[in-house]
């Protein structure tokens, strides 16, 4: 095993997600074997890995959509494996999840989608719900006219923004993003990156992001975790990860696309990464 020791967590940082000894299997096929990972409060963590290394499976396991074969997952200092139904529902109000294609409810307008979690969890008046929804829609970078539209009438980028508005409806502490920039044009993808960083800065969000987009990795992420060989082989700042001596990492970050993304972030917006 050429696994590199995980960077020691900074002592004063608060781990909002702790994964220990996670095992995920599909039949005989093992996706994760003894996987450990920490996510700290207020950081943007990027998860990368080749196809089939279980990035999305990891995300689904952490948020509780999939039951792992073994291992412990702590979220916001609650052990996810022995939570009752009610406790889990309560905890779910503190997390937001942006699915790959948005997963907006297709029978509701964007505004109704954003109001759905508010109405479900709070005895909220229609007026306040509408105001909160309008603000979240604007916060996600959508024009006011988007509120009355149905998801099928929106472009891919707008759908992601609408889904982000819904994910942010209850002011979650942790937001999970599953390939947020996949399928967006470079301009839209860049705007989405900016949006994620600005929301993290103003709302103090913790962001767990599965991505393949090298530009977003360089632009957004404070730390990157690399999934390979059924576990997290390394986690650290983008620079640390890039210097790791592992063939897959070298290929990933050292390939032509990796170098181009690095050049563009260091050239044009080199300071933007060090916002933290």
């Amino acid at each position: 095993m050429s696994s590199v020791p995980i960077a020691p967590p900074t002592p004063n940082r608060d781990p909002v997600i702790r994964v220990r000894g996670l095992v995920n299997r599909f039949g005989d096929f093992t996706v994760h074997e003894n996987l450990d990972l920490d996510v700290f409060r207020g950081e943007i963590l990027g998860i990368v890995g080749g196809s089939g290394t279980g990035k999305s499976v990891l995300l689904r396991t952490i948020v509780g959509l999939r039951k792992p074969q073994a291992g412990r997952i702590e979220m916001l200092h609650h052990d996810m494996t022995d939570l009752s139904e009610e406790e889990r529902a309560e905890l779910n109000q503190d997390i937001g999840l942006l699915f790959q294609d948005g997963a907006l409810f297709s029978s509701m307008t964007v505004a109704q989608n954003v109001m759905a979690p508010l109405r479900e969890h709070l005895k909220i008046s229609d007026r306040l719900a509408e105001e909160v929804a309008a603000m979240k829609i604007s916060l996600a970078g959508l024009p006011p006219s988007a509120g009355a539209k149905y998801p099928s009438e929106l472009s891919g980028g707008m759908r992601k923004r609408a889904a982000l508005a819904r994910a942010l409806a209850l002011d979650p502490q942790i937001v999970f993003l599953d390939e947020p920039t996949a399928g967006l044009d470079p301009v839209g993808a860049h705007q989405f990156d900016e949006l994620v960083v600005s929301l993290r800065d103003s709302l103090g969000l913790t962001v767990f992001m599965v991505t393949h987009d090298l530009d977003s990795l360089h632009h957004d992420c404070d730390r990157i975790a690399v999934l390979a060989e059924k576990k997290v082989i390394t986690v650290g700042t983008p620079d640390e990860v890039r210097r790791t001596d592992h063939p897959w990492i070298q290929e990933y970050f050292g390939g032509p696309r990796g170098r181009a993304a690095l050049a563009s972030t260091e050239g044009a917006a080199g300071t933007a990464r060090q916002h933290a």
Partner: protein
Amino acid sequence: MAKASFEALQDGPVQRLIARGAWTLEGGLVSIDGDLRRFVQKRGGAGGLRIDLSGVEKLDTSGAMVLQRTMRDCGKQAERDDLLEGFDGADAQAQALLKQAGSHLKPCDLGGDGRVSFMLVLERLGRTTVSAGAEALNILSFVGAVVARLGGTIARPSRFRPTPMVHHMEEAGLDATLIVGLMSFLIGAVVAFMGATVLAAFGAEVFAVELVGISVLREFGVLLTAILIAGRSGSAFTAAIGSMKLREEIDAMQVMGINPLDALVIPRTLALVLVMPVLAFLAAFLGMLGGGLAGWAVLDIPPVLWVNRTQEIVTVSNLFVGLVKAPFFAFVIAVVGSYHGMMVESSAEELGRRTTTAVVQSLFLVILIDALFAMFFLELDI
């Protein structure tokens, strides 16, 4: 953590709104929102207003939004931050939140307009009428396209695709034999039993033979088959073609120069037109069998008598009257099912709606055509 609360103090020309507790959605913001609105309404825009946040233990985006809204509704701008308007005692995080909320405090189009419901009902009626008319025209034009394409296929048989047709004959025909047979057997038995019970009052149980023979051969056999096939295969056609449409497979075909009518609609239509008479025959036969067995088991009419009476009275023209309708029903079911599949656009939700509509419309058309045939045969005295 204390619940959200507020209190207003007059301080010379300036009114101070002291906010306390957790100004978050979970922290009671929902319950004080009404009070805050009433306070703003009573107060109006007179004098200065400064909001003091030093007692606020927790603030979220919604809390910040409500505070900014209060400022705005009193005609104040927090950004001016002078003696008369602004926030006090906000820490760095609260300031960031307030700034963010302030810049996103805007109305949003929520759909729905202020019209009264009566007008909405009228509008809906009008829209439905227009779209029903348009849909009828669309179906007619689709039928025309399918018929024209069928004619073209006869002229150029190389276009014809036998493999998918045989596949659909198996799926819609062979696989349906069990359910169609069982249903008509039971219906035949029920008709015999019910008929005989009523006829017994006149001492005419034996006329149950005519009742079963004529009703099953002329109507029930073929109609039940059509209803089952509409539910089973018509919906399957819509779902299959519709999901291909959603995944852009049909566009891909067109780009490759494959006519979707040739590849998808005509094999299905021909398959159904070919198997439906067979299924209807099977249904008629099993319906008679069911009636006969019920007559024997429950009404003590011996099978020999039943068969003899059937041969004497129920002429074979009854069977043809029933079977001749089968290809027409099949054509309607296949074309309506395929049409709705081709019309699916944009969402999976529409696929579900179209599937339902396809079944309802083909059943309606099947029964309508059956009624027309009944009038036709009545005039011809068959």
